[in-house]
């Protein structure tokens, strides 16, 4: 779960990190009121999960009420890389002379946390990592011991942070590491950490991704989840407990098991279609879960056809089939064509009882995908480029 900047900043500030004065606003009036209480110059920052907000016009600096109104009007409601901006953070602008990057993440290859510092902050850190990896100082942390103070210092000195702020920046890194552990985060990151002309250190941005699998032990963070979701479908997926990712195409995909669902997406593409989503309903296939999955896929207005691919494994195919039949019984007519393929344990029995009047039924994964792509093309989808 990715927190919004304003949520992460609340968490960071509570942990003692220096963040600028800020208020959340959802209307131009609220922006003006916030700027008034914070003082000018103030930054107006779109609260959406996209990189490069600044370049895309999602951050503006206001020196006066007029400018603040202008910024609010232009940012609130704007479309930022596909997301509508509903909320902005109004924040005291920091007069900085230097921008640093400080972050903690999991290095999955090493199986260890890694703490990072760069004196090239304020830009896309992934580009820095690509183009001049030596500009990022890295400290791998032994997760049993946690980060030693010397490691924070070493990262900071190795990154070439100037001596007079080294200790403060090391402090930011230590706190970010503690937050990372205490919150079961995937990442905690500040980019940029700004150094002001009077050598103060300020966390001007805040990124925090929390491990979804660990939310059960962080009820305070879990509460932020709804507000953090970017759109209705994602919120719905959270509610249903599905792994769901919305994509650009028109072939809806439902399956069990991440690897097999990804493979189904790949086959849709391979046979010239475009996947509309990734949806893994996980183990079992009770009628309710099947119904929820269909609800999700149909809720995406881009979807023109659906492929439903289940490899039974321990789950019995006849039970899955029954679940599908029950789930589609609610419709007089299916809104979009569905092609089903069942395999594995009791698959044949399942195929036999499937409601073949309402559903397309295919023997093989390849066949099912081809049929769904066909339906989608017929419905007006552009068919995409085949491989």
């Amino acid at each position, binding site marked *: 779960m990715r927190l919004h900047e304003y949520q992460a900043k609340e968490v960071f500030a509570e942990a003692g990190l220096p963040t600028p004065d800020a208020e959340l606003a959802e209307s131009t009036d609220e922006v003006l009121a916030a700027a008034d209480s914070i003082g000018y110059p103030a930054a107006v920052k779109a609260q959406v999960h996209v990189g490069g907000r600044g370049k895309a016009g999602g951050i503006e600096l206001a020196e006066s009420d007029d400018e603040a109104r202008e910024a609010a009007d232009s940012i609130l409601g704007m479309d930022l890389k596909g997301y509508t901006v509903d909320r902005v953070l109004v924040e005291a602008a920091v007069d900085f002379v230097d921008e640093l990057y400080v972050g903690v993440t999991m290095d999955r290859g090493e199986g260890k946390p890694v703490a990072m510092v760069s004196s090239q902050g304020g830009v896309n850190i992934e580009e820095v990592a690509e183009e001049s990896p030596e500009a990022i100082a890295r400290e791998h942390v032994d997760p049993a011991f946690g980060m030693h103070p010397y490691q924070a210092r070493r990262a900071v000195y190795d990154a070439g942070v100037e001596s007079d702020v080294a200790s403060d920046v090391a402090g930011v890194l230590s706190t970010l590491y503690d937050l990372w552990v205490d919150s079961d985060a995937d990442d905690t990151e500040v980019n940029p950490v700004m150094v002001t002309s009077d050598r103060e250190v300020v966390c001007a941005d805040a990124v925090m991704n929390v491990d979804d699998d660990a939310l059960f032990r962080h009820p305070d963070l879990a509460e932020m989840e709804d507000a953090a979701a970017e759109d209705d479908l994602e919120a719905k997926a959270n509610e249903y407990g599905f792994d769901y990712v919305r994509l650009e195409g028109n072939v809806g995909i439902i399956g069990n098991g991440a690897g097999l669902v990804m493979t189904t*997406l790949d086959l849709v593409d391979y046979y010239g279609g475009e996947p509309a989503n990734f949806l893994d309903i996980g183990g079992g296939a009770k009628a309710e879960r099947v119904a929820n999955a269909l609800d999700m896929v149909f809720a995406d207005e881009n979807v023109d056809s659906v492929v439903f691919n289940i490899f039974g494994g321990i789950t019995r195919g006849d039970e899955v089939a029954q679940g599908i039949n029950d789930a589609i019984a609610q419709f007089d007519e299916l809104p979009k064509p569905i092609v089903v393929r069942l395999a594995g344990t009791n698959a044949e029995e399942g195929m036999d009882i499937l409601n073949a009047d309402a559903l397309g039924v295919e023997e093989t994964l390849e066949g099912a995908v081809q049929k769904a792509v066909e339906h989608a093309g017929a419905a007006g989808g552009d068919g995409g480029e085949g491989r």
Partner: protein
Amino acid sequence: MSVLVDDDTRVVVQGITGGEGEFHAGQMIEYGTNVVAGAVPGKGGEEVHGVPVYDTVSRAAEAENADASVVLVPPAFAADALFEALDSPVDLVVAITEGIPTQDMARVYKRLGETDTHLIGPNCPGVITPGEAKLGILPGNIFSSGNVGLISRSGTLTYQVVDNLTDRGLGQTTAIGIGGDPIIGTDFVEALSLFEDDPATDAIVMCGEIGGTDEEAAAEYIDANMDTPVAGFIAGRTAPPGKRMGHAGAIVSGSGAGTAESKIDALDEAGVLVGDTPEEVADNVEELL
């Protein structure tokens, strides 16, 4: 011949009194697996499917001479169960549990490095040597005995590929579901080396997916160290960067590492025959044998 498990393997099931644990312990026993004990705190002295339950894994391992453990406990308690298994000690731990917090696994991984135990998983379907033993939740009926080793990060995709293989009479020595999490015990390289050392394995299928660089490392290893031919498959070619596709491991960072393209290229260069569809993977195995 086989790797990791066979009909001599003596198995403890951690969590055997839970719903999942009891069901899959029954399935394992039915398949012929030598399940010798269960371990559940507070349930010592009970029996499940005629198998004695102990309060601790150490006691179970000692009393029943067990050398492997299957972990079927809920995610909140799974890391502790893994530490317990590693400390019991047994030679092989198979962690089925899905959804273990990543930081818990980082700590387990650190401990794992201090032991000689093999850990398979977590978030994996388990390990099966067809006709001998299955440790995990794989559907035994789709497997058949033969000379193909299989390694996969994904559960149901494994079944799909095995189904295609078995359909054509291509049986398996052992199939290992190494799991889809960001931090796992046995990785491709370790699993490949086990099969390379197994004289009964004549070809290997490895099913990878986007995220991480484990497949790239495997390609390097294959190129440098392996004689046994390998057929490959990579799921997630169409996944957009920055999105998590179900498996926590399956997230492509924006910088180009961990993409399907990078993995397929690396495997290609190492001489691995990479298929575009599960069917094609089976075609390739036939060609390699």
